[in-house]
């Protein structure tokens, strides 16, 4: 079973899953990780490959430093890695991103039986890229998968959707987005990471390799734009109290009394 996994390098939200301390080879000052749910997708792909045979190709679109994410994936066991990068690609919304990723997947030979990615990323969180890739590649999609079983020429998958536990049959090729529950993520073998960084080759594709035009990608290929950014304004002007734990506890108790959750004397109202 040939599987393509789309991953994204995202700013690090400290996670108990990955111990960044051991990644001393990562050179950049800005901490970046593989989007946690993409890591789950990668693990699932590797498990499927180990059981069914075939190949796992990891693809990412991003700035050159995204190569680190691909090397991690290779160290974890991916067979091939492709970096989609180039100045034209930046500023992309999900419409443009899915277009580039779909173009890359289309170029894979053989065309994958299965395309996997995490349901959403920790930075932009839209959950759009999976479905939008599936649309462009004309693949059936199931989002939020937490169980995968391989049958003769289709998959049986399970997921939670709006309060229903659904069991579905999907014919291949297909695209699935996966959730945390799909599998527990294996730990990265330290030694393999060193090898991944020094020896394995990452394929790099740009605009020309994908046979795309500038106006189809990046900011120009996007339908949405960020008009402005703002920090959420202060909504309440409350008291900010510092001090010894006892002082803090006293303030808390006093607030409970103010709200009549506690009586001024003993017990509750």
């Amino acid at each position, binding site marked *: 079973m040939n599987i393509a996994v789309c991953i994204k390098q995202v700013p690090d939200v400290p996670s108990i899953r990955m111990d960044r301390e051991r990644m001393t080879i990562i050179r950049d000052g800005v901490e970046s990780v593989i989007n*946690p749910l993409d890591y789950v997708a990668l693990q699932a792909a590797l498990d499927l490959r180990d059981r069914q045979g075939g190949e796992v190709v990891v693809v990412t679109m991003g700035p050159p430093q995204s190569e680190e994410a691909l090397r991690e994936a290779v160290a974890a066991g991916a067979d091939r890695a492709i970096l989609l990068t180039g100045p034209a690609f930046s500023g992309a919304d999900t419409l443009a991103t899915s277009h580039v990723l779909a173009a890359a997947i289309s170029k894979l030979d053989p065309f994958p039986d299965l395309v996997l990615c995490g349901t959403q990323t920790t930075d932009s969180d839209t959950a759009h890229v999976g479905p939008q890739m599936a649309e462009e590649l004309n693949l059936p999609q199931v989002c939020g998968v937490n169980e995968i079983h391989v049958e003769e020429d289709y998959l049986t998958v399970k997921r939670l959707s709006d309060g229903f536990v659904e069991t579905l049959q999907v014919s291949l090729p297909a695209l699935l987005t996966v959730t945390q529950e799909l599998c527990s993520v294996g730990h990265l073998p330290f030694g393999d990471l060193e090898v991944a960084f020094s020896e394995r080759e990452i394929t790099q594709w740009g605009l020309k390799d994908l046979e795309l035009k500038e106006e189809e990608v990046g900011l120009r290929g996007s339908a949405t734009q960020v*008009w402005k950014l703002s920090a959420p304004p202060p909504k309440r002007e409350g008291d900010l109290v510092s001090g010894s734990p006892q002082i803090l*506890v006293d303030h808390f108790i006093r607030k409970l009394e103010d709200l009549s959750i506690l009586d001024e004397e003993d017990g509750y109202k």
Partner: protein
Amino acid sequence: MDTSNDLKGVWVFGDYRNYFQNRVTLQLIAKARDLADKLNTKVIALALGDRVHQWAMEYVAHGVDIVLAAEHPDLKSYQVETYCSVVAPWVEAFQPQIFLAGATSFGREFFPRLAKRLHTGLSADCVALEVDTETGLLLQTTPGFGGELLAEIVTPDHRPQMATVHPGVFQERPHNSEAVGRILYPDVDVVPETRVKLIRSKRQQTRQIKLEEAPVVVVGGRGLGSREQFESLFELAELLEGEVGATRPVIGSGWTEKERLLGQTGKTVKPKLLVSIGASGAVQYTTGILGSETIVAINRDPQAPIFNMADLGLVGDANTLLPLLIEALRKRI
């Protein structure tokens, strides 16, 4: 009656599955009414299924001007590609300027595929929607950059301007039994998706965690450090006769069940007292607690954004304070 012009208004996708918990369509209709009034246009709701009479009537009662209805056995279960095959031609034919859907599980997998088919822009999980009456641009506010900032997004050149919104962001209008609306039954060419088959669908067993009804909610964040520390919140909540909620990283770490998640992709609560412990205050979390009457926040970092929305902020270590709070409360019973 200029129907073709009316249909260019604000569309709302009617998501009625799990109806008694899910009021998001009605909430969006209220917001659509607001946007349509400012744009001097109409609110249109889509009702698709094998029997949609009840929903058509409900949507009209909540302020919809026109219902676009389609009944077909293949529309009985929510299926992304099947629904795209019906809705995309309608959008292309009638050309709405704005199209909204609830960020339900279905909405979050249907709307992106539809937006891609229509080659237009879509923003996800908006916490606010406004319209610029001069340009007709929909200003779509979403949390960005991991939730620390708010991003205002626009779709300048592509139409419709699509957005999903999480349940609880907007408020529905009261049901109006006197309302009468138009209902259109457009031609439908259903192309059922044969590559995905729903084999079984079982209602999820949810434990009765009535977070939305609790007078006091105690929320634990990542700063608590461990599952054991998080679990000590239950005693605090019990002493306050409240319930326990959690932020995304806590759920992600598996310290407690998903039903306790608060925020953009979780529940919205408006208790009398909300105590936030060990959470920094990312926008994705705080949108779920904005309506609380009183917010008390405990965090080690005086710069934590949560203090911008607390009525009382206590700068201290959650793990040191928790046992002291519990002890102090035990003494008062």
